[in-house]
């Protein structure tokens, strides 16, 4: 008796649970997406019209003037180029090098396997810190160079672990037979291992590309005196801190004076436009790599 009653109750309560759960998920989606839609609306809406308020998820008076303005600023044009360049160069170089290192530490016969692994993994536990790191870059004469974006981060230890775990899961026979055919380690790595490691490489590429695209602190710290090496995120960050310290209206004046057309844009519209420019590449790319990075996270997180 009691059992059948609880069964009937539970199926009703199950349905209530389902409904609540779906409502909760929809709320979550709204909270996650609303800010982006709001930025989208502000970036395509006429700046003076936006001042009147009540722009939420859709532009009221469509215009491309905000984008026109943003890309006509020479430093933002540069910044977009440098952001793209560091993302592409940084990702290719770092992923190739990390994969090569991961291959060497995945070879069971390699005599330095343990030594190399430990040397790298140990660095996850400490760092010299900000000041010694800065002085090192200064001593190496890398201040105000493009390479300061690439070289200090060339190997990611977590990424190395992800790739290594993946290579260790490949059938050993493949590498054996390559050796028998007379291929050296580099050929085996480049011709056999790399093509088979694509899922892991996709994961790691996404991590590195996102890191590169989103970086602003290294620009701030090492290259803030070279305007030709600025990045999108750093330019956006500077806009944020101006609007933080001075009142919004004086920032608007500064923009207007700089451009000479007082009516065209406002700090809010420029910031929204920059936000869209700075996040659209990521929004487009990451969903396609989802199945890879979900797997990569689990492998890297649990196996390390």
């Amino acid at each position, binding site marked *: 008796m009691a059992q059948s009653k609880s069964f009937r109750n*539970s199926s009703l309560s199950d349905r209530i649970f389902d409904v609540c759960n779906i409502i909760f998920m929809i709320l979550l989606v709204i909270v996650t997406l609303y800010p982006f839609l709001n930025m989208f609306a502000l970036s395509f809406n006429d700046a003076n019209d936006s001042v009147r308020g009540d722009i939420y998820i859709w532009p009221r008076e469509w215009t491309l003037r905000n984008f026109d303005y943003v890309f006509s600023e020479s430093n933002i044009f540069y910044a977009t180029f440098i952001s793209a360049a560091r993302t592409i160069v940084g990702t290719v170089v770092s992923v190739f090098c990390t994969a090569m290192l991961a291959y060497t530490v995945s070879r069971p016969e390699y005599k330095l396997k343990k030594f190399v692994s430990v040397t790298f993994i140990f660095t996850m536990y*400490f760092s010299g810190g900000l000041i010694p790191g800065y002085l090192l870059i200064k001593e190496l004469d890398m201040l105000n160079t493009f390479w300061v974006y690439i070289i200090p981060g060339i190997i990611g230890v977590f990424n190395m672990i992800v790739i290594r775990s993946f290579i260790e899961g490949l059938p050993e026979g493949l590498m054996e037979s390559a050796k028998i055919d007379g291929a050296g380690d580099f050929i085996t790595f480049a011709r056999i291992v790399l093509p088979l490691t694509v899922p892991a490489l996709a994961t790691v590429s996404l991590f590195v590309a996102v890191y590169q695209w989103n970086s602003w602190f290294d620009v701030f710290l090492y290259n803030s005196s070279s305007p030709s090496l600025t990045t999108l995120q750093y330019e956006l960050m500077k806009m*944020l801190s101006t609007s933080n*310290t001075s009142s919004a209206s004086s920032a608007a004046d500064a923009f207007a004076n700089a451009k000479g057309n007082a009516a065209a844009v406002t700090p809010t519209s420029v910031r929204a436009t920059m936000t869209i420019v*700075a996040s659209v590449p990521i929004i487009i790319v990451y969903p396609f790599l989802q199945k890879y990075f979900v797997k990569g996270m*689990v492998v890297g997180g649990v196996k390390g």
Partner: protein
Amino acid sequence: MELGKGTVQVEKTAGQMAKSNAGASRFKTFFIELSKQKMLMLMSLPFLIWVFVFKYLPLWGWTIAFQKFKPARDFFDQKWVGWDNFKFLFQEQQFYRVLRNTLVMSSINLVFGFVTSIVLALLLNELRNIFFKRTVQTISYLPYFISWVVASNIVQTALAPEGIINVLLLKMQFIDHPVLWLGVGKYFWGILGATEVWKNVGWNTIIYLAAITSIDPSQYEAAEIDGASRLQRMFYITLPGIKPVIVLILIMNLGHILESGFEAQYLLGNGMNVDFSENLDIFVLKYGMQMNNFGLATAAGMFKTLVSFIFLITANNIAKRMGESRLY
């Protein structure tokens, strides 16, 4: 060329010797075998040099913590001051304030982030429509990938006097005039905690969802036959099923307790909330790069690294002892 020849000779003589007294020369065999792995060595050596230069060499910079450092001077011309920088640091009122902020903010992030991501993972797991579930998951990962600069811009826009938060709260009549949220110090920790959850909660579910898939489905079937409701199954099967992963992640997060993040505090912090937003990393940046007190900044950074190191090693050892895990 000469070098290569030399190695071959060494290899030969070493080979003969190894033959003459086998067993006694494990050391030599090691080098013989290693010398056959020139390509592997060539493929890892550049990175060994890299890791030495970029990760280990900066440790030398810790000597600055014991100097009255002037960038223009050579290492040998620096004035050594012993423990003075540390003494000054531990007497500095501000240091205790940033230490408090660091610990409070990372604790809030830890508890908030931890609970919300487990709850979200459990709820996602209960969604029956796979397409809906996938869509929600994909959307929930989005904020993780955008930069802190963009996230801070979003937060500032939402919290502005005419921003959505004030609009909603005014409409619901929780407040009767717009609040300058980022201008009030005591709100900062809550804002930061909520922002961190917004940004990372979806991403953090990945590991729990993976753990849930490894729970034996027959347990659910048995529970269903026994008449357990969805909530009961969630509490008595799913949650205990992922307990080892939960405990593991908790321990690892405790190891990172001094890492409360830097970008969010730096970008959302301002003159009005500085007493609550400034953490250890910002303290180091401020003293080192802006006030040129390299010695004091390095001492603070060194303090942080050493304490973190102890926490991390301890956390790692506990995780290992539990047997569950191989997290680093």
